[in-house]
């Protein structure tokens, strides 16, 4: 009798757990709709989406590559008022004016056009490197924290090793082994960031693992993978997402520190981090050269953070009810 009751209880719990992820299609649809509404009602998140679309539009429509590619010619600036590489050396460091809204840089290039074009490299670097670092790090931390024992020790000591390399040295290592190039730089930044994600994911997992519901799930015989996916991941995801939105800004800036050792984009290709780096030499003389790229980073990071918070609200199981 007791046995039957237990197994019945099992079924109930199992069903409830199943419902959350493997529910019938109708349930999912209505759930999605509800989530979508929650998201839309979250005004900051909508502002985030708006800002992100703005930056994406900048990146995509900086020039008319989508037309030029069919006509077999060099793309012409579209959104950007000028060619970002065109130098007007005589008027260099000119302050913002009607012709050049954000002034000219130290080579006499239009800062606004460079910011618009620069969004391409910077978005790519910010997103991809954080994605690489975030996914690999979170997986490391989750696996380590959840499985414990030897696996945990090995994974977290590898994270220690990676953490012991400051970005510049990691950049040099990637440069020495894989060579230069934008994607190798993104990889380098990703590797630098991964142990920080691993540590946060690891610590959160340790905390969550001890919760009653994990014990409950385990007692009914749920597998490791299932527990990790259903119970742990959703509970640590918010910290990971927040960390990701924090590190995006760093990743965009680190680009500048790595491109000067030959990793990443070469001059004169515009990128926000490098623009700030160059502009800082003229901080007192022509503050606009470094101020506007800084503002661009701020807006982008703001967009990702607002969006990240909005997403977290949706992903967080506790906030769904």
């Amino acid at each position, binding site marked *: 009798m007791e046995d039957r009751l237990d197994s019945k209880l099992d079924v109930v719990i199992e069903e409830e757990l199943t419902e959350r992820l493997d529910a019938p299609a109708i349930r999912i649809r209505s759930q999605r709709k509800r989530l979508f509404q929650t998201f839309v009602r979250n005004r900051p998140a909508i502002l985030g989406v708006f800002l992100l679309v703005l930056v994406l539009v900048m990146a995509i429509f900086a020039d008319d590559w989508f037309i030029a590619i069919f006509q077999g010619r060099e793309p012409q600036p579209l959104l950007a008022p000028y060619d970002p590489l065109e130098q007007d050396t005589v008027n260099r460091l000119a302050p913002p004016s009607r012709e050049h809204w954000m002034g000219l840089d130290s080579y006499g290039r239009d800062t606004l056009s460079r910011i618009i074009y620069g969004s391409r490299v910077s978005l790519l670097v910010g997103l991809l490197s954080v994605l690489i670092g975030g996914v690999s790090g979170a997986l490391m931390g989750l696996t380590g924290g959840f499985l414990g024992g030897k696996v945990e*020790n090995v994974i977290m000591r590898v994270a220690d090793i990676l953490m*012991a390399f400051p970005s510049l*040295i990691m950049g040099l290592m990637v440069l020495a082994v894989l060579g230069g190039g934008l994607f190798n730089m993104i990889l380098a930044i990703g590797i630098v960031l991964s142990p920080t994600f691993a540590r*946060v994911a*690891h*610590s959160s997992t340790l905390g969550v693992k001890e919760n009653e519901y994990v014990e409950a799930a385990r007692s009914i015989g749920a597998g490791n993978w299932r527990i990790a996916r259903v119970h742990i991941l959703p509970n640590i995801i918010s910290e990971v997402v*927040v960390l990701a939105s924090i590190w995006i800004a760093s990743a965009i800036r680190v680009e500048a520190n790595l491109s000067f050792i030959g990793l990443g984009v070469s001059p004169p290709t515009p990128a926000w981090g490098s623009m700030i780096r160059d502009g*800082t030499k003229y*901080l007192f003389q022509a503050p606009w050269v470094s101020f506007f790229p800084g503002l661009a980073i701020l807006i982008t990071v703001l967009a990702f953070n607002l969006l990240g918070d909005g997403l*977290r609200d949706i992903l967080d199981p506790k906030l769904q009810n």
Partner: protein
Amino acid sequence: MGKYILSRLLLAIPTVLAVLTLVFFVVRVIPGDPATAALGDYASQEAVEALREKMGLNEPLIVQYFNFLGDLVRGDLGASMITGKEISDLVKQVLPYTLELTITSIFIGTILGVPLGIYTARHVNTGVDYVGRVVSLAGLSVPAFYLGILIMLLLAHKIPIFPAVGGGNLKDFKSNIMHLVLPALTLGLIMTASVTRLTRSAMLNVLKDDYVRTARAKGLSERVVVLRHALRAALVPIVSIIGIWAASLVADSVLTETVFARPGLGKMLVSAIMQRDYTLLQSVMVIYALFVVGINLITDIAYSFVDPRITH
């Protein structure tokens, strides 16, 4: 616990060895060598060759590697290839500056960041929260040197309270503190930004938890609920971000150290790379790796204090 600490300390040996081996071989792959860097572009080829010989760079790599390891085991960090000074002396001179800066900025980052995070979490989606978020994001978007220069401009030049340059005299407490304030403020404010963000998020997470609700239902005052129950549960991720900052500040405070013309371990690392001072770079990396291992160990131990359910 004692056994755990011991095993972690023993595990530090392979970690440091791995870091060291990677650094040893990789710095020798990048173009340029300490002889050329030391003599500059004007020196003749034969002078460079003579110096290479003297520096022992012409020996087989594997011999150099084991020589270095051998010295290290004997506790000898070697001498800088450029200035010829004992690396242990150089580190001894620089380390106090790095430690005081790191510790002070972590202190500032924590005492500002955690309360701010709690406050914005409790007033989520109000004006204060929005302002707090934007300000903390601005803190993340500003490069350290940018903020450093602005702080220097304000508090050393416009309102000349603090000295603008140098690390101060370590033996003179007042001079030391005065030189510490501005760089520590710079790094502390930047750290505040991320600590605030993470604290806010972690607090939001737990404030909705059942036991917080239970605590509230029991009629406990909001203060007790937030500080005793919620914060405690949120502390684990907060402790880990502080740990991450502690580890990264030691090496990544280069820009701040450069702006304020302070000596520091991070700066030493970068200049060792630029000068191709192999021995200095290797030794500083060993010290840094030990730091990271140590900080991570302390953080891991801290988890079980913050959340007694976590055991090692």
